[in-house]
């Protein structure tokens, strides 16, 4: 495919088939505040892409840039190879968007709001549009409240209606800004189920603070901090630690000689030792996972004085990874 040249700053991109969203050097400032600094993002097609970051990291700014609601200060981006500035309307005809705080026209009912939204995409047939509206109301559990004015909707009901509106056009890409923020645990699970269901034919790009949800449904994540992308990749890769493998060993007994023996191995990068409830816990960082798998436990047990109560490859929780990355960034 041919490269693209952007009006603001010359950015040549080579969009490729496997990517839904691609940005290169995308930046945005508000006055003296640089909200987004040269973002290079690649969101695979048909992925559930979690976009993480603390408040003010630039997540909403990125989403608004992708939708043409704000204009890039530098760089650019494409969605399915279409320019986010020049082809914005064409992009929006294939996108569903749920803003962080959904706002609707107060005088309309839920059904009227869905009908109004559907008609930005569809001219007919009437029966099919009405059926689609019913389908969406059913999906988000608002069928019994469909004819009430949205003015009286609770925060959760607004969020559900917003989710229905985002899907009314059967989009190829859903951009969801904190989709589960105002929902109770059951509502959250419903949202995750909807996202799973849509994965088959749509790409979902969503921001959230609920890291459990990300771990549950996302296949790829990006972490943004202070306007900069600090990590991006498959969830599994982030959870396993991208640069090192760590084994946990918990033992009872005198570990002094075992420690010297293990530390002397060429594939051991370091041992972090802590004491807990009379036991010794090691976190052994290794550079050769195969060697560690074959030899580490054997080396520890070769000292007959030691009883090993736990031995496992350390798995990280996403929250831990997220906090570590954000803290590392904060400390420069």
């Amino acid at each position, binding site marked *: 495919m041919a490269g693209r040249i952007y009006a603001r700053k010359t950015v040549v991109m080579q969009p490729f088939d496997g990517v839904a969203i691609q940005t290169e050097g995308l930046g945005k400032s508000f006055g003296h505040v640089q909200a987004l600094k040269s973002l290079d993002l690649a969101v695979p097609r048909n992925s559930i892409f979690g976009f993480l970051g603390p408040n003010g990291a630039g997540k909403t700014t990125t989403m*608004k840039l992708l*939708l*043409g*609601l*704000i*204009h890039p200060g530098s760089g650019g981006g494409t969605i399915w190879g279409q320019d986010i500035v020049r082809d914005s*309307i*064409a992009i*929006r*005809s*294939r*996108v569903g*968007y749920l*803003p962080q*705080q*959904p*706002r*609707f*026209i*107060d*005088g309309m009912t839920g059904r009227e709001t869905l009908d*109004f*939204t559907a*008609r*930005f*995409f*569809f*001219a*007919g*047939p009437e029966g*099919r*549009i009405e059926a*689609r509206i019913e389908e969406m109301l059913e999906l988000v559990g608002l069928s019994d409240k469909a004819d009430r004015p949205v003015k009286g909707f609770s925060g959760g009901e607004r969020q559900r209606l917003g989710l229905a509106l985002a899907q009314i*056009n*059967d*989009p*190829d890409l859903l951009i969801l800004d904190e989709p589960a923020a105002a929902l109770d645990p059951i509502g959250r699970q419903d949202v995750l189920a909807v996202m799973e269901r849509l994965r088959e*034919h*749509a790409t979902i790009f969503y921001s959230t603070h609920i890291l459990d949800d990300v771990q549950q449904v996302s296949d790829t994540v990006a972490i943004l901090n202070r306007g900069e992308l600090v990590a991006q990749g498959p969830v599994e890769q982030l959870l396993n630690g991208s640069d090192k493998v760590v084994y946990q060993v918990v033992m009872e007994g005198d570990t002094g000689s075992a420690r010297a023996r293990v530390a002397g191995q060429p594939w051991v990068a370091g041992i972090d030792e802590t004491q807990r409830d009379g036991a010794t816990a090691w976190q052994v960082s290794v550079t050769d996972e195969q060697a560690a798998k074959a030899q580490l436990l054997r080396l520890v047990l070769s000292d007959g004085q030691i009883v090993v109560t736990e031995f496992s490859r350390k798995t990280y929780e996403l929250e831990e990874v997220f906090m570590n990355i954000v803290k590392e960034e904060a400390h420069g």
Partner: protein
Amino acid sequence: MGSNAGEFQRVSERGWRNGLANLLRKENRTWWGSRRWLTQSLLWLVVVNGLVALALFALPLAVEMDPNQNVEDVDFVAIGFQVLFQIGAIGMAVGVIILAQGLVIGERQSGVTEWILAKPVSRAAYILSKLIAHGIGVLVILVGLQSGVAYGLLSLASGDLLPLPSFIAGVAGLALHTLFYLTLTLMMGVFAESRDKLLGVALGTLLGGLVLSSIVGRLALVTPWLLPTLLPMLALGEPLPLPISWSMIATAAWCVVFVVAALWKFERVEF
């Protein structure tokens, strides 16, 4: 599109017209899909034609009771024309500013504009839908209906049908004057960040203009400020002290300038 999209007939609008038909339906609904058309009709019937009726039918009774005045010396039909085209013009301008003040700024502040613009909608369509729908609403209910009823009352009072061409020319001027304040208010909804500023500029232009028009001399001819003074004479078919066509053309030009400025700025607004 996803799996079910093939069953739908896609919207065919392209370019600046993207979303226009749907937005027009929404804006028209605020006038014709609710009771607004009825309440505004009744309100302006009382305000404008109530005053016209008072001037035509109650004022002669009051003059008759005054021993110092001769009822034959007072042209009550001319007073009726003044009420419609002078007081009515200013009243309709205030009304249109109040009616239109929240059209853009209200939706921007509530987040509705952001929500709408995330759909396949051109920004020009957003502004034009408001201009067209509310322009029609205002011209039909405020200007057209009230002028029509007033024409009936004035003809009744004069005992014969009034000459239609000059009356229509007066109504056209009244429509232009009202549209000036509609387009100004719409434009200020795009430029201003708050309703205070919007109302300050729009009402300031209207009320300040009434004062300034007597100070700036013939320069006032390139503004709508002289229209309320000249329109009664135009509608009555009387000779005009100043060329009103200048004011009419200038007012129309200002309307175009305001719309173009609103479209230009709105393309650059961020949400």
